[in-house]
């Protein structure tokens, strides 16, 4: 609250008419509250908004927006006696002082200073009251903060996801096409050249270009498989599983689509778990199950390998656990030494 005199005085003096207006509209609404609560809610919301603007403009007091009809009605009704008291005290004292000053008695200045001081005190009291009654309680403020954090976290995840898509798209439309064109030119050159060192050099450049293309292809699909957006989890996981060196039993029962961010996390959980299986597990049987039930997407990756898989700090599974947690999902690894290993995740996916 700024320490400025005039706004406080204005605040206290306008408090009475504003409160009067408030009571005048709220009382009839309260009268029909037995029939419908809607008019009360609407009127209280309107008056509260007006008061919030007034406090912000005159006293620089920001009151967070919240819906609490009872409490706020209490303030608007209480504002009338308070406003009347304030008006009487400030206006009375000030006009008495001014009258003394006009009749050339300097002692009137004291009364004016007292009036301004009283306005300050009353405005501050009003602000405390308004914060308590019009604004959120501590619990409500915490709830609002939590909701805000959840919202911004979801935005951050969506942004990271969109960024991966953008990079995938850029590489696909740019680098990959140019590399294909380059490899094609080298292929044509190789065909056109007669045997000799020149042809050998072009031949090796051609092979190298093809190897780079294959490497880039693996990298880009790992970044974000485009088929995931086109056809969903089932299709993307089919492609993933088909590209692995060992057979995987895949069972997907999703029925419809989950939000893009959720599908992406689900895909990468399975992808990372399968990478671990093929690298370390020495498993003979691997099964992936993805089922949606009651608005939750459940993923399990089972293998009968050597076990002992844990989320190393900074490792792929650890990173995935964080991504899963970021959307309020759960992530578990059960992998006793000697196996079997089960990686489980549950993600929200609106039903």
């Amino acid at each position, binding site marked *: 609250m700024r320490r400025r005199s005039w706004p406080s005085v204005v605040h206290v003096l306008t408090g009475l008419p504003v409160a009067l207006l408030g009571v005048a509209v709220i009382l009839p609404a309260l009268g029909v509250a037995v029939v419908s609560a809607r008019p009360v809610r609407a009127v209280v919301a309107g008056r509260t908004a007006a008061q919030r603007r007034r406090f912000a403009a005159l006293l620089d007091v920001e009151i967070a927006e919240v819906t609490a009809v009872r409490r706020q009605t209490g303030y608007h009704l209480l504002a009338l006696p308070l406003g009347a008291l304030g008006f009487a005290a400030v206006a009375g004292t000030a006009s008495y002082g001014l009258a003394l000053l006009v009749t050339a008695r300097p002692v009137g200045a004291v009364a004016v200073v007292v009036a301004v001081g009283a306005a300050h005190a009353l405005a501050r009291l009003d602000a405390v009251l308004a914060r308590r009654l019009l604004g959120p309680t501590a619990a409500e403020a915490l709830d609002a903060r939590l909701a805000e954090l959840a919202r911004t976290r979801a935005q951050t995840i969506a942004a990271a996801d969109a960024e991966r898509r953008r990079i995938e*798209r850029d590489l696909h439309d740019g680098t990959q096409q140019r590399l*294909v064109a380059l490899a094609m030119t080298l292929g044509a050159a190789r065909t056109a050249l007669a045997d000799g060192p020149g042809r050998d050099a072009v031949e090796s450049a051609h092979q190298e270009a093809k190897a780079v*293309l294959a490497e880039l292809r693996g990298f880009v*699909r790992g970044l974000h498989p485009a*088929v995931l957006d086109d056809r969903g989890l089932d299709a993307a996981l089919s*492609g993933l599983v*088909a590209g692995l060196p060992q057979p995987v039993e895949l069972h997907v029962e999703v029925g419809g689509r989950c939000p893009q961010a959720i599908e992406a996390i689900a895909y990468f959980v399975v992808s990372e778990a399968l990478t671990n299986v093929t690298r370390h597990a020495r498993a003979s049987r691997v099964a992936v199950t993805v089922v949606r039930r009651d608005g939750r997407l459940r993923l399990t990756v089972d293998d009968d390998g050597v076990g002992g898989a844990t989320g190393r700090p900074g490792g792929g599974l650890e990173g995935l656990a964080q991504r899963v947690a970021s959307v309020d999902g759960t992530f578990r690894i059960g992998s006793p030494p000697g196996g079997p290993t089960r990686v489980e995740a549950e993600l929200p996916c609106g039903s």
Partner: protein
Amino acid sequence: MRIVIAEDSVLLRAGLVKLLGGAGIEVVAEVGDDAGLLRAVERHRPDLALIDVRMPPTHTDEGVRAALELKARRPEVAVLLLSQYVEERYAADLLAGHTGGLGYLLKDRVADVDEFVEAIRRVAAGGTALDPEVVAQLLVRRRTSPLRQLTPRETDVLATMAEGRSNSAIAAALGIGGHAVEKHVNNIFAKLGLVPADTDHRRVLAVLQYLERR
């Protein structure tokens, strides 16, 4: 031979036109999206349409959808799809209705000019050209039961055959003799319980139907 190219990368399109021109294949139209492709096919009635899977407007699977529509409307026009990745699901969609005059290859394959031109000619003639990666994906997903009875060499032969190659091409690709290929092919058909087929295309069909059934 007259073909239509649908590819949104101008650079690649220009390269393809040059490459195919050198091989005596006439590119009668070049377009950059699926709608343009369907119009161009109606107008020029080409022998084959060479189609990129990802095209405007959504850059997802326009090419696959356009290919399916084209096959439904004009079954006599052969279709060869090119893509940066081969996806099992797209292959399954494409192969569900038709295998004749159909190809699905990784874009990388255009770098091997002779083989690529050969694949175009094979598809235009009503044959099949499946990328080894497509075949590998189909085989991996169905790597159960009778396929396990195949020797590694027979598996190689089966994979190459499923790409749409003839016996002599399989022999060349694997560096073995023509008689050996014939022997392997007979063994494969026997082990999988397939009816022996006379033409390359019908052999591919038999293999694909077998893979689809698994």
